[in-house]
C-alpha cells in the first residue's frame, strides 16, 4: 500500500500553495475543465433527467449487488474467463502476481486503473521481478517520476511541459541531445514510439474497469488514447482489476451511465474508445488474449454498504467534483495524501484507510456545494463529509482545543438568549475596535485565522438582529 500522507494534509497544502509549478498548472487547467463540461451539458437538454437515471441505476445495482455479482461471475465463466474474488488489497496483489508468475511474465503493460493505484500493484510486481509499464500518457510520466496521480482522470494534472521534457530526457537515455520538446506534439510522438515496443513485448496486460456488466459478463474501459485497448488486446493474458461496486445490470444501464460520464469528465459527448471485453479469444478469432481474468476486489466497499456512506459507492470516477472544487483548485491532488483527491477522495479515503488517518480531508471543504451540484450520479458529497466530521468528533479524534471551543460554542448555542447577547456584545466590541481599518490583521485567540488572511471587522450588528429587524420592516429578501 502507498503510505498515506493524508494526516499531514495541512503541511501538504501549505507546500502546495507555495509550489509555483503546481500553481501554474492549476491556474491553466482548472477553468478549462469547467468550461468544457458546461458546454457539453448545455448541448444536451436531457442532461438532468440522465443524471436522475444514472443515480437510480447505481442505487438499484447496489441494493442488489450480491445478485448482480453472482450473475456477472456466471457470465464471465460462460465466456471462458475467470473471476478471482479478493477481500483485501493483499489478496488482490497476490492474485495478480500468481497469474503473472504462472505465465512466466517478465513485462506487463498497464492501462490506467485507480484500483491499481489503490492496491499499489506496480510496487508489488516490481518487488517480484516483473516490470510494469504504464501506458496511459499521464500515468506513464507519473511512473517515471515515482509519483501518485494528482487527479483521477488526468494523472499529470500538476505538471507543465518543462516537467515532461525533463522526465523524458532522464528516462529515455537514447535520445539525441539535439532532440527538441518544444511542443506537446513532440512529447506525444516520443511516448507513442517508446510505448509501441512495450505493447508488443508484454506478456500480460492489466486494465481497470469503468463498469462490469452482469448481463453479459463484460468489463468496460473508457479511454481516449487507445492504450487500454492495446493493453488488453495484444498480450496473451488480460487481467481486469475492478472493485465490486462497478457492477451494473445491463448494456442499457451501462450506456445510460456512459452518457453522463464523458460529459462530466472531459466535456466530450463520448470518449474515443469505449470497449466491452467479454472472456478470452473465441474459436476462429485472429487476435485477442488467450486468457481473461477478473480480479474482483472488495477492500472496504462492502462495509460502506448499508451505512450513510453507501451513496459514495455510486461514484463513476468522472472527476467533475475535483474539477469544480475550490480547495482542489488551490492545492491540487497530492496534498490529499493518498490515491483519491478532491471531494470524492475526502469521502472515500476515510472509508478506505480510516478517519483517524484521513480526518483532515472531510474538513478541507468550504461546503460550497459545487461538487454535489455537478456530480453525475448526485452523490451528496458535502453531506457525507459532514458525516465524517461527526464520526471524527464521536471517536475523539478532534484536537482537544477544537473540542473545548466547540463545547463552549455548544453551551451558548443551547441558550439562545445568552447566545444572542454574547454575539451582540462581541460584534459590537469588534466593530468598535476595527471601525477605523475595517479589518483585523491580528486578533487574540484567532491567530489560526489571521495568520493567512485578515478578519473583516463586523459592522456592529449581528445576523440575528438584522434578520429580526428586516422581518419586522418587511424588507427581508
Amino acid at each position: 500500500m502507498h503510505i498515506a500522507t493524508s494526516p499531514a494534509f495541512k503541511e501538504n497544502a501549505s507546500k502546495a500553495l507555495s509550489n509555483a509549478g503546481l500553481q501554474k498548472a492549476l491556474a491553466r487547467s482548472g477553468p478549462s475543465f469547467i468550461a468544457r463540461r458546461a458546454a457539453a451539458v448545455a448541448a444536451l437538454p436531457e442532461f438532468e433527467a440522465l443524471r436522475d437515471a444514472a443515480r437510480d441505476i447505481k442505487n438499484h445495482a447496489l441494493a442488489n449487488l450480491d445478485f448482480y455479482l453472482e450473475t456477472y461471475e456466471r457470465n464471465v465463466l460462460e465466456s471462458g474467463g475467470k473471476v478471482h474474488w479478493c477481500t483485501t488489497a493483499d489478496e488482490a496483489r497476490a492474485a495478480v502476481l500468481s497469474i503473472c508468475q504462472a505465465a512466466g511474465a517478465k513485462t506487463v503493460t498497464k492501462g490506467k486503473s485507480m484500483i491499481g493505484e489503490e492496491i499499489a500493484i506496480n510496487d508489488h510486481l516490481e518487488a517480484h521481478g516483473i516490470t510494469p509499464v504504464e501506458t496511459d500518457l499521464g500515468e506513464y510520466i507519473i511512473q517515471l517520476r515515482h509519483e501518485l496521480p494528482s487527479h483521477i482522470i488526468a494523472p499529470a494534472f500538476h505538471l507543465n511541459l518543462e516537467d515532461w521534457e525533463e522526465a523524458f530526457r532522464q528516462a529515455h537515455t537514447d535520445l539525441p541531445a539535439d532532440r527538441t520538446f518544444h511542443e506537446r506534439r513532440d512529447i506525444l510522438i516520443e511516448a507513442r514510439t517508446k510505448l509501441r515496443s512495450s505493447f508488443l513485448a508484454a506478456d500480460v496486460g492489466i486494465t481497470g474497469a469503468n463498469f462490469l456488466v452482469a448481463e453479459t459478463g463484460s468489463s468496460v474501459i473508457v479511454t481516449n488514447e487507445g492504450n487500454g485497448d492495446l493493453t488488453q488486446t495484444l498480450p496473451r493474458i488480460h487481467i481486469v482489476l475492478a472493485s465490486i461496486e462497478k457492477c451494473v445490470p445491463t448494456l442499457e444501464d451501462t450506456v445510460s451511465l456512459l452518457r453522463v460520464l464523458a460529459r462530466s469528465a472531459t466535456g466530450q459527448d463520448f470518449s474515443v474508445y469505449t470497449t466491452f471485453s467479454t472472456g478470452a479469444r473465441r474459436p476462429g478469432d485472429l487476435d485477442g488474449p488467450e486468457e481473461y481474468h477478473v480480479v474482483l476486489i472488495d477492500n472496504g466497499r462492502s462495509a460502506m454498504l448499508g451505512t450513510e456512506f453507501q451513496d459514495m459507492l455510486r461514484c463513476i470516477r468522472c472527476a467533475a467534483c475535483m474539477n469544480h472544487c475550490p480547495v482542489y483548485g488551490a492545492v491540487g491532488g497530492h496534498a490529499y495524501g493518498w490515491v483519491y483527491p478532491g471531494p470524492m477522495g475526502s469521502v472515500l479515503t476515510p472509508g478506505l484507510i480510516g478517519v483517524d488517518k484521513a480526518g483532515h480531508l472531510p474538513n478541507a471543504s468550504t461546503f460550497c456545494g459545487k461538487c454535489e451540484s455537478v456530480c453525475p450520479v448526485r452523490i451528496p458529497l458535502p453531506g457525507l463529509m459532514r458525516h465524517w466530521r461527526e464520526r471524527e468528533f464521536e471517536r475523539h479524534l478532534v484536537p482537544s482545543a477544537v473540542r473545548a471551543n466547540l463545547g463552549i460554542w455548544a453551551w451558548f448555542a443551547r441558550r439562545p438568549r445568552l447566545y444572542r447577547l454574547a454575539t451582540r456584545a462581541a460584534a459590537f466590541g469588534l466593530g468598535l475596535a476595527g471601525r477605523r481599518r475595517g479589518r483585523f490583521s491580528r486578533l487574540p485567540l484567532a491567530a489560526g485565522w489571521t495568520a493567512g488572511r485578515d478578519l473583516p471587522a463586523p459592522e456592529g450588528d449581528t445576523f440575528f438582529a438584522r434578520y429580526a429587524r428586516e422581518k419586522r420592516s418587511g424588507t427581508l429578501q
Partner: protein
Amino acid sequence: MSRDQILGAIRRSLKRGALPADQQAMLRDRLQRHPRHPIPARSRLPHTQQVDLFVRNVEKEFGTVARVAAPEDVPAAVADYLATQNLPGRIVLAPHDELRAMPWSTRPLLEIREGRAQASDLVSVQHGYAGIAETGTLMLPSAPNRPTTLNLLADTEIVVLRAASVVGAYEEAWDRLRAEFGSMPRNVMLVTGPSRSADIEQTLELGAHGPRRLHIVLLGESDSA
C-alpha cells in the same frame, strides 16, 4: 473463501440474507427485458437525417467521411483517400465477405493483405458493424472476420460502413447486436474519432496510441439519393 466472505459481507451490510426467490425472479426478468432509460431526443429522426447527424458528429470528433453510392465504388474511394493523404497504397483488409466481394482488382496498385493487423501496418480497412448517430460512434464487434487489431495498430484506420447500418442511439445498436450475434462478442469497441490525449497540460493532441486518422467510407443512401 473470499467469494463467500464478500457476498456474506454485502448481505450483512444490506441487513438481509440472499434475495428471496420472487425478488431474484424480478431481477432476472429485468435482465431479460433490459429496459431502456431516457434517450436523448437528438437522434430520433428519419433515417436519412440520422445518417447526416452521424456524419456531422464524426467530423466534429476529427474523423473524416467519404460517401459512395455502391460497393463497386469502395476500392476507388480507399485508393483516392490514401493518395490525398500521401499514404502508401498498402492495406491490411478485414477478411469479411462484404469487403472481399468488392472489385479491388480494379485498383491493381493497391497492395492488399487480409487478416489481423501487425505493428508494421500503416493502413487498415475494417468492416463497420453499425454507426451510432447520437455521437458519431462506430460499433466494431470482434469476430473472425473483424479482427480487433485492425482498430488499433495501424496509423490510419479506414472503416467501410453501410449507411443502412446507421442507427440513432446506442440502444438500437445493442438490439441489433443481440439479435444477430446471440451472445456478446469477445470485444465490442465503440469508436468515436481518432486517438487523442489531453494528458499534457490538459490540451488536446490527436494521435496518441491508437490510429492517428479515422476515415469512414459510407456506402449507399448518398446525399443525392
